[in-house]
């Protein structure tokens, strides 16, 4: 591969994911982190917004820190489509040459960013939880968990541009929105070819489950094998309810049929990083830790003092959760 002139690439971009006309919160979080990176590099922070009838969202991105918004508002982009989103983003990036492009490590971001990285001959790092800059070479250090979270790796893309990453949701902090903030909205020319796809959206089925989506929750109370049975899971639910949080579970609890798979946290379930994670009767396998150890505050309640979960917890209670959970729930209800 011919050596690239890295000087040609300037600017920090974030892909602003929206579903059905609503921006995903991770877009605002990435604008928060992106602002920091762009200020350090002394370049613009730009957002890329794709969709249909979404022009009004551009101002929200500017209010949250973007200097420019590259906007493609087209009926063909009404629903997420891997090919179209990849082609259009690669098309815009080839025209304007950013040095960094970030998106959320969501179902959407992780589905189409790999395609963009191939189209742009760029490196891509998955599910990053931190970013640092090397100002001499303008390299972005992309820090991510690997091996089920038990290993951290610092990845760099020394020769290629743009440097691309998907970033974990709920790890970075959004800025306080300033509605008066001014920015520029740019509507780039898109090649007709970029809007051709062989796959097409048919329909969206909302999950019938009415419980809080654990990926979105700020507080999660999770139960594991130590709960002892499906009936006892109500102790976990009641505590979650008292705290206004969601209910999570370890694989052992799901495999025992105590709670549906959509609640599973861990390597084969969902990766979460809430502000508060209370692990009840969860020993803390490498797989479970992979899914929750980037939570801000972890509380562990377990009868086994040797359980690895205490190794990642800030607060621990060694004891019988049949006593502790109801007592805590009652205390919270009292206020």
């Amino acid at each position, binding site marked *: *591969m011919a050596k690239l002139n890295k000087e040609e690439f300037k600017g920090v971009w974030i892909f602003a994911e929206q579903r059905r006309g609503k921006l995903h919160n991770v877009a605002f979080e990435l604008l928060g982190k992106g602002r920091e990176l762009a200020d350090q590099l002394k370049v613009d922070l730009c957002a890329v917004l794709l969709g249909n009838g979404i022009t009004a969202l551009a101002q929200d991105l500017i209010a949250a820190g973007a200097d420019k918004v590259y906007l493609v508002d087209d009926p063909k982009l009404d629903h*997420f489509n891997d*090919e179209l989103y990849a082609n259009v983003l690669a098309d815009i990036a080839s025209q304007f040459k950013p040095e960094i492009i970030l998106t959320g490590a*969501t*179902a959407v971001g*992780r*589905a*189409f*960013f*790999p*395609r963009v*990285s*191939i189209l742009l*001959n*760029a*490196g891509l790092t*998955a599910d990053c939880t931190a970013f640092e800059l090397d100002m001499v070479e303008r390299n972005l*250090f992309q820090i991510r968990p*690997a*091996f*089920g*979270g*038990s*290993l*951290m*790796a*610092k*990845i*760099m893309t020394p020769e290629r541009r743009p440097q691309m990453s998907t970033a974990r949701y709920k790890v970075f902090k959004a800025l306080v929105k300033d509605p008066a903030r001014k920015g520029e909205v740019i509507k780039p020319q898109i090649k007709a070819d970029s809007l051709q796809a*062989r*796959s*097409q959206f*048919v*329909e969206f*089925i909302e*999950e019938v489950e009415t419980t809080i*989506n654990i*990926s979105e929750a700020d507080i999660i109370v999770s139960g594991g094998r130590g709960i002892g049975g499906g009936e006892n899971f109500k102790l976990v639910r009641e505590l979650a309810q008292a*705290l*206004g949080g969601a209910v999570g579970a370890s694989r052992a609890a799901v495999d025992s049929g105590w709670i549906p798979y959509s609640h599973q946290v861990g390597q*084969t379930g969902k990766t979460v990083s809430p*502000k508060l994670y209370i692990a009840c009767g969860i020993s803390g396998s*490498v*797989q479970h830790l*992979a899914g929750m*150890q980037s939570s801000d505050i972890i509380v562990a309640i377990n009868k086994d003092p040797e359980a690895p979960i205490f*190794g990642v*917890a*800030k*607060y*621990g*209670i060694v*004891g019988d959760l049949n*006593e*502790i959970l109801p*007592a*805590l729930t*009652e*205390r*919270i209800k009292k206020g």
Partner: protein
Amino acid sequence: MKIVVCIKQVPDTTNIKVDPETGTLKRETAGTVMNPFDMYAIEEALRIKEKLGGTVTVVTMGPPMAKEILKVAIGMGADEAVLLCDRLLAGSDTWATSYALAKTAEKLGCDIMLFGKQAVDGDTAQVGPSAAQYMKMPSLTWVKKIREISDKEIVVERMMEDGIDVVKSSLPVALTVVKEINEPRLESLKGKMRAKKYEPQVMTLADIGGDENMVGVKNSPTRVAKSWSATREAGKAELIEGDTAARAENLFGKLKTLGFIK
């Protein structure tokens, strides 16, 4: 119908232990297995074949030892297995790996390419969609159900965070599957017998017509600058002591101070 399933040999993370002294992973004692998500991809491939006819070929890129997982796939019922093995491929990142797998699939001919949603060692989920882009195929990730499939078209349900996207695509197509899609079969006795004698076809970069400037550690865009154990120091938790009421009161106070109780 030519179906190619890309699989990976990974350390057995269900068996992996953290060294309590150093806090690092004891990889050497863990052993290796087929990436668990790949079982679902093989199962789905076999089901497509049972419905529409054709062949199922499993491909893995790795050292000669990776033949072990190819034999498991043969035991499950795959028709053929290919080991892509070449020193030039060593240290390839997802960008380079997906190129090599795409070239292999191109060489073999392929109407449907299947992947597990991600490998449990790297956890990137990038190789499936990247390979699809090299092949200029649509990629449908996180597939939890194939609703309809014919020689020309497929309709799938994809698991997104907020629900299910139903998507239609022409063939050829690449899919990455989640574990909800099926219950993988065990190796049959007949399959095991065949696997015992079966020698996977070994291919080199030259065999697949690959460009050596596209692969290997040297040509991979990403570099690991540093890696370290992420296990927080054991026993770091502040233990809350006392009788049940005192503990509940104490934890309540902490949660309130932290702003979790309004």
